[in-house]
């Protein structure tokens, strides 16, 4: 028998499904910044980011009246929906551009990229965007979204060992890309 999943959002989702506007506002306040951050880091600075967040919530509103408590955490489910929407867009971009997905981006420190050093956050964003999608997803879920390793691995459909491998390779690539900044932090 499947174990019941404890979900801190359960009561709010059930209320929102019945149209309770306070619960709706609480869910939007709690989840929208997380979804927006997830989409922004997966898609970069794009108009698609807001579309993904909005579409994910619209799916959540449709699903909320039929939400079955204990089957899954709402936050995890919402992440899955948003990630699927992000991957739809990433695939569309690759189809349009005709470029194969990058399988390894580990450019290492490059002195001529020093012009970006004034804006560390932007540099980090660019380095993240340059990662292969799965490495970026692993880092976004574990580091930025602060999901546990089992939850993140489950979301990505990989083992915990595979998740750790993606994280290690992603972080190694980031360390290389941002090596010129590391000393200044």
């Amino acid at each position, binding site marked *: 028998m499947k174990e019941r999943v404890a979900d801190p959002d359960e009561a709010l989702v059930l209320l929102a499904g019945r*149209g309770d506007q306070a619960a*709706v506002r609480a869910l939007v306040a709690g989840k929208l910044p997380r979804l927006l951050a997830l989409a922004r880091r997966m898609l970069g600075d794009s108009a698609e980011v807001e579309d993904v*967040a*909005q579409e994910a919530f*619209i799916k959540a509103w449709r699903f909320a009246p039929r939400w079955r408590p204990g089957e899954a955490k709402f936050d995890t489910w919402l992440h899955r929906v948003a990630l699927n929407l992000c991957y739809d867009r990433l695939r569309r971009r690759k189809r349009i551009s005709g470029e194969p997905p990058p399988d390894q981006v580990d450019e290492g420190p490059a002195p001529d990229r020093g012009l970006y050093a004034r804006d*560390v956050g932007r540099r980090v964003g660019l380095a*993240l965007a340059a990662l292969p999608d799965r490495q970026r997803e692993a880092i976004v879920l574990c580091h930025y979204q602060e999901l546990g390793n089992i939850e993140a691995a489950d979301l990505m459909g990989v083992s915990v060992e595979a998740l*750790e491998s993606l994280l290690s390779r992603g*972080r190694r690539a*980031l360390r290389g890309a941002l090596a010129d900044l590391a000393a200044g932090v």
Partner: protein
Amino acid sequence: MDFARFRTLADAYGGDVTRWPAADHDMARAFAAAHAVWAQPCLADAAALDALLRQSVVAPPARALRERITVAAPQTPALHRAWRWLVGAGIGGVLTAACAAGVFTGVAVAPLALAEGYANGQNDPANDAARFLREPIDVTEG
């Protein structure tokens, strides 16, 4: 926990042991204390990258986006009832206004038309009576 596993965890999850898998916390702390000379630089190296990653921040959601999402949420039955009542009240209001307009037209325009008719003799009841008296009664039928 051994050196390789400690390094793997630091490489994957960063320099803050509290963000490592919960099952590894105690062993990792004990290992770091026992091998501080090796473990502390390993954690510091990972923490330097963590600090860089924290510099990437995402702006909070725009108010317009929050509102679009909130408006799309399910409505309570009470709100639905209120909405239906408002729609009904709106239709009722339109009908009431239409009736009121009709009554107003009747009240305001008819006397004018009558008055105009009176003025040229078409609508004067007295003329109708006079016409009735002037016209011969047909007695051949019946």
